């Protein structure tokens, strides 16, 4: 009797899986392509796949609400459709299912040790989600999970037997994916130029925060760059995309521009630095830099990248508001004349 029930349950699960296998696979795929960027590491509080603690509070309101939040976005940082406007809602739901699917497996104390293929895990939640509290930890869970694995990946159960004893085996989809996430430390595209209410330093409960202009609304018409605000400010000014005032209360006062390039020969193999007065005097007054930051005399200012990194010299602005030092070639832009640089360095110059 017991065995028949067990086998029926098993069959039912297999049938269910056959139906869901396609969407589960899709969910995994979508997750890895679109969602993992934030969700794998839990960036800015994004719920991580396979992390029950992350998902439990969100699932309290029901799965429909989770789906809706995925589509519409949340003020806590989830962009609408994760920033992929062209994603079909069914695909989005499959990805959500895939991520929640991991959570239910982790809630069961016996299972996390088993390296379970993510494909098998995804469809389980519907069946298992209601049960976990009632389930005794190991015994009844085992046949269900075994059956689950059997359908989509025949090899999986064999693999499990082989690796079941390895207690510390990493869980694919959560542990492994997190540590090997692509561009792990970079700010993903969806997290750049956030509106004030979501940027992490504003208090989103204040009315003032909500009245402030979101950066993207200003930047969308401006030329792009690869660092800082991701705006090329010099180009924006040159192309008249913006018209910043030169005088506080006069809209039409013209800047006093000085066109003089200073070439600084540098040690080592980097190209020499060309300092353009023109681009700087479009924005700044002579007195902003001279004489406090730079003595107005060629060769009088010693510089090093280390000092600039720490906010000295060029680092007063570059690395704070102007483009940061990651953009090496914007300054180191003059190819060295090989013969001249050899002579210079042997003569003990080259500052």
């Amino acid at each position, binding site marked *: 009797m017991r065995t028949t029930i067990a086998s029926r349950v098993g069959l039912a699960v297999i049938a269910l899986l056959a139906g869901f296998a396609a969407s589960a696979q899709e969910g995994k795929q979508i997750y890895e392509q679109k969602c993992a960027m934030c969700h794998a590491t839990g960036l800015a509080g994004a719920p991580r796949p396979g992390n029950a603690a992350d998902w439990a509070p969100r699932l309290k309101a029901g799965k429909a609400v989770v789906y809706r939040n995925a589509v519409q976005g949340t003020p806590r940082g989830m962009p609408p459709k994760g920033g992929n406007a062209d994603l079909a809602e069914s695909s989005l739901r499959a990805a959500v299912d895939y991520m929640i699917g991991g959570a239910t497996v982790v809630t069961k104390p016996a299972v996390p040790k088993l390296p379970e293929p993510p494909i098998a895990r995804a469809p389980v939640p519907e069946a298992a989600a209601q049960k976990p509290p009632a389930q005794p930890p190991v015994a009844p869970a085992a046949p269900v999970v075994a059956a689950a694995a059997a359908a989509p990946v025949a090899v999986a159960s064999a693999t499990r037997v082989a690796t079941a004893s390895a207690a510390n085996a990493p869980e694919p989809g959560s542990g492994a994916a997190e540590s090997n996430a692509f561009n792990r430390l970079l700010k993903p595209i969806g997290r750049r130029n956030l509106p004030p209410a979501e940027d*992490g*330093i504003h208090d989103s409960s204040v009315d003032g925060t909500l009245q402030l202009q979101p950066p993207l609304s200003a930047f969308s018409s401006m030329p792009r760059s690869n660092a800082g605000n991701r705006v090329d400010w010099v180009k924006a000014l040159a192309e008249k995309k913006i018209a910043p005032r030169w005088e506080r209360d006069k809209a039409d006062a013209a800047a006093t521009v000085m066109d003089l390039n200073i070439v600084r020969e540098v040690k080592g193999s980097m190209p020499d630095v060309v300092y353009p007065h023109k681009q700087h005097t479009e924005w700044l007054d002579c*007195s902003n830099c001279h004489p406090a930051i730079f003595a107005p005399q060629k060769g009088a200012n010693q510089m090093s990248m280390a000092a600039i990194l720490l906010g000295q010299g060029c680092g007063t602005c570059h690395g704070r508001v102007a483009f940061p030092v990651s953009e090496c070639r914007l300054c180191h832009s003059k190819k060295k004349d090989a013969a001249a640089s050899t002579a210079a360095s042997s003569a003990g110059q080259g500052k």
Partner: protein
Amino acid sequence: MQRTFARPGKWIALAITLLAAALAAGVQDAGAEYGDVVMNTYSTPAGMRPVVFPHWFHRVRFRCKVCHGDLGFKFQAGGNQINMLKIIDGQFCGACHDGGVAWSVENCNLCHSGAPGTPTQVHESTIQKLVAPGQPQAAAGAKK
């Protein structure tokens, strides 16, 4: 400002140490805009939220020279000792935020909109990224 670059080795060593500390401690993931300045010299002790100054917003509308030249803002977060009396008196922010060039001081929450207790800092600055999270950022952001 003093330029003491006589011993570049010292600076390089310091930079490497800071970089190592940053890598060991991980990188912060707040999403604020590059160059946003949080000013919290007087706000928190006075029971106000800190001020967030969006550099990008002002840069769209004014050249650097207007504030950093004409109005006397130093290139230093926390280095200007701005308070409401000076602003109402027409100094610093008050040169424009007077109801003339820009909206005036009764819109408290437009400036004082920072998350409570956020320390003075230049957000996303290189030096902020070099210093391990958890260390006083006021010092890092304010240091020249």
